[in-house]
């Protein structure tokens, strides 16, 4: 939408209303992380700024377009809207974006079939001319998260939007993530030149290897190559699809007859948040004794050379295929990431290779489910895949079920399973949010459109038999067996049968080298049950005794409940309970009254003074007249 007054500041104040579902709250925070990674837009809890976004559970999913300067601007994430791309979509509206197919040049790219649109719903296919809406010199985007799907507002089964390039007919309407052009437009509109959490991405295509350096404290160097005779035969970024490109870094330990190390160090990096996620692909072509150590070279104020701190040792690296690894770092000072290949003497040839490194100040997924030879399962009647068992940080054991049997859609479900800690855990399992992500394996983290869904365990949820759905699996689950024959209990699954269409699954880089990765995170979100600020039981108790008027919000500061009062550009509420209203107009009236009063007072003082002086002189003059008269009478 054209107009600077519709823009928000780069950091948008927000309030997550208590009406929101727990799962929605977690999803909204995840959506904010995508903004932080890919744009310069940040979000902060509202602290009394004139304008802010109130995210609440209204009826449906909706938003206003742009900053309307309402003070409190509502954005609804209602039932079934708790999907990350839906939240991204609604916040793009709030940031000033219309739908993609409403732009002025849309008829060049799509045909709107008016007689297939429900009667009275034609207004949904508005088009704005270029005095109202600006596409910022970005081409029409079929892949935009802001585009309608082909079935939008249809009165039958035929599509209401037909793309002029037929290949895009099933592309429009994706609700996975920002497209490249969504990001280009947003970053142009808000003059973004960097993001808050992205640090580096390297696929080694350029000869400068992203500024990485060979250490002088080792025995050998890593080499930039496009293939190795003992493997890998090609890189991971483009899987060797382009002759003359597709490079990776290789540590050749085939000639080594003693323990040998080779260190590759990243350029200097400057953290902002204090936690980082390092992601890379690793290939082992030698033997199981090969090892990769990850260090951080930390440059504290009094250590100019940097001290080398070990983060993790990666051992037992599978041989003969690219493997995805995540490593959590906690750098707070200037630092470098150090990849140390460690080779033990041995007769076999080969070595270690790394490719597609991404470093960002985000949280790493807790678990990675790597599915090899994936295509054989798609649409197969036997396409029911169960992940290995995983444990959450709280100790809950769980498993993921991927349903590939359908010919159109892929389903994904989360199951609690019996585990070693069950007797020490709380049941029914309360407020654990599980995020399941089908990874788009684009080499650059900023260009990925990963497909993600989250579900949350509600301890009060009842199943069809009247049992608590999230109760202990040994109580409510069914007997199942691991491939090694071990018996366990598996509770009912909770998820979706329409996680992604098979057509989309086959697009982008979801499948790469016939490998698929499902990233899993299970975290406790019970702290989100009440907001503003992050609650504790005492926060709830203190605020329960305080009622803030006029949409003020109760917060706890220094163990004392206080009301944060709303304010606008020229008005504000004040008082202990936001009960009094102030405005610029009031101030002007007070100032003008004060000036008038002072002026009046000064006038009175002046008049009195003049009066007194005149009276004094008049008296003096009259007494002089008498004297003169006497003198004159005497003289004449």
């Amino acid at each position: 939408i054209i107009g600077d007054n519709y823009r928000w500041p780069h950091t948008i104040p927000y309030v997550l209303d208590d009406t929101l579902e727990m799962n929605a709250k977690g999803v909204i925070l995840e959506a904010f992380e995508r903004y932080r990674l890919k744009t310069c837009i940040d979000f902060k809890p509202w602290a009394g700024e004139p304008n802010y976004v109130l995210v609440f559970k209204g009826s449906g999913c909706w938003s206003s377009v742009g900053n309307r300067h309402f003070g409190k601007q509502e954005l609804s994430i209602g039932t079934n809207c708790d999907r990350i791309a839906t939240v991204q979509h609604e916040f793009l509206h709030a940031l000033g974006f219309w739908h993609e197919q409403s732009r002025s040049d849309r008829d060049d790219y799509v045909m709107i079939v008016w007689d297939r649109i429900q009667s009275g719903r034609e207004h949904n296919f508005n088009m704005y001319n270029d005095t109202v809406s600006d596409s910022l010199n970005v081409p029409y985007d079929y892949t935009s998260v802001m585009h309608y799907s082909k079935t939008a507002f249809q009165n039958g089964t035929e599509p209401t939007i037909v793309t002029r390039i037929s290949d895009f007919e099933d592309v429009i309407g994706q609700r996975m993530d920002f497209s490249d052009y969504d990001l280009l437009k947003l970053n142009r509109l808000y003059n973004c030149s960097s993001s808050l959490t992205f640090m580096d991405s390297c696929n080694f295509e350029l000869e400068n290897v992203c500024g990485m350096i060979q250490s002088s404290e080792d025995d050998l160097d890593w080499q930039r190559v496009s293939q190795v005779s003992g493997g890998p035969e090609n890189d991971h970024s483009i899987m060797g699809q382009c002759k003359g490109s597709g490079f990776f870094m290789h540590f050749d330990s085939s000639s080594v007859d003693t323990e040998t190390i080779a260190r590759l160090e990243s350029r200097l990096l400057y953290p902002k948040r204090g936690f980082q996620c390092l992601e890379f692909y690793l290939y082992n072509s030698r033997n199981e004794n090969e090892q990769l150590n990850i260090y951080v070279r930390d440059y504290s104020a009094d250590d100019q050379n940097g001290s080398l701190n070990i983060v993790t040792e990666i051992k037992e690296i599978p041989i003969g295929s690219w493997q995805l690894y995540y490593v959590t770092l906690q750098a707070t000072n200037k630092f470098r990431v150090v990849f140390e290949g460690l080779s033990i003497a041995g007769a076999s040839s080969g070595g270690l290779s790394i490719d597609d490194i991404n470093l960002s100040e985000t949280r790493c997924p807790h678990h990675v489910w790597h599915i090899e030879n994936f295509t054989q399962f798609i649409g197969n009647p036997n396409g029911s895949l169960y992940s290995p068992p995983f444990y959450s940080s709280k100790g809950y054991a769980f498993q993921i079920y991927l349903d590939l049997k359908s010919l159109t859609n892929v389903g994904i479900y989360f199951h609690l399973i019996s585990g070693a800690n069950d007797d020490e855990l709380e049941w029914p399992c309360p407020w654990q949010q599980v995020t399941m992500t089908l990874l788009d394996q684009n080499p650059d983290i900023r260009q990925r459109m990963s497909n993600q869904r989250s579900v949350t365990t509600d301890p009060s949820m009842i199943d069809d038999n009247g049992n608590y759905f999230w109760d202990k699996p040994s109580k409510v689950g069914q007997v199942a067996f691991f491939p090694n024959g071990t018996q366990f209990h598996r509770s009912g699954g909770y998820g979706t049968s329409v996680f992604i269409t098979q057509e989309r699954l086959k697009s982008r880089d979801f499948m790469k080298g016939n490998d698929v990765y499902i990233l899993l995170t299970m975290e406790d979100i019970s702290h989100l049950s009440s907001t503003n600020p992050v609650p504790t039981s005492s926060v709830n108790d203190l605020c329960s005794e305080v009622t803030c008027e006029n949409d003020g919000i109760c917060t706890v500061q220094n163990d004392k409940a206080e009301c944060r009062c709303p304010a606008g550009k020229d008005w504000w509420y004040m008082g202990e309970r936001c009960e009094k209203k102030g405005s610029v107009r009031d101030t002007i009236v007070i100032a003008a009254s004060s000036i008038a009063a002072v002026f009046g007072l000064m006038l009175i003082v002046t008049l009195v003074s003049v009066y007194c002086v005149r009276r004094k002189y008049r008296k003096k003059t009259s007494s002089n007249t008498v004297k003169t008269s006497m003198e004159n009478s005497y003289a004449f």
Partner: protein
Amino acid sequence: LPTPEDFVKDIDNGIDQDIFDINQDLGLDLFEGDIRVDGAQDRNS
């Protein structure tokens, strides 16, 4: 062993509802499906 079909709960009931479908099912007739216009939630109102 595979889990029986009825041992999973599908939160989408087998339908991939887009934003506009969700709003329509609720009887909303928002501007362009999901846009609130100047404080008026309903386009007609």
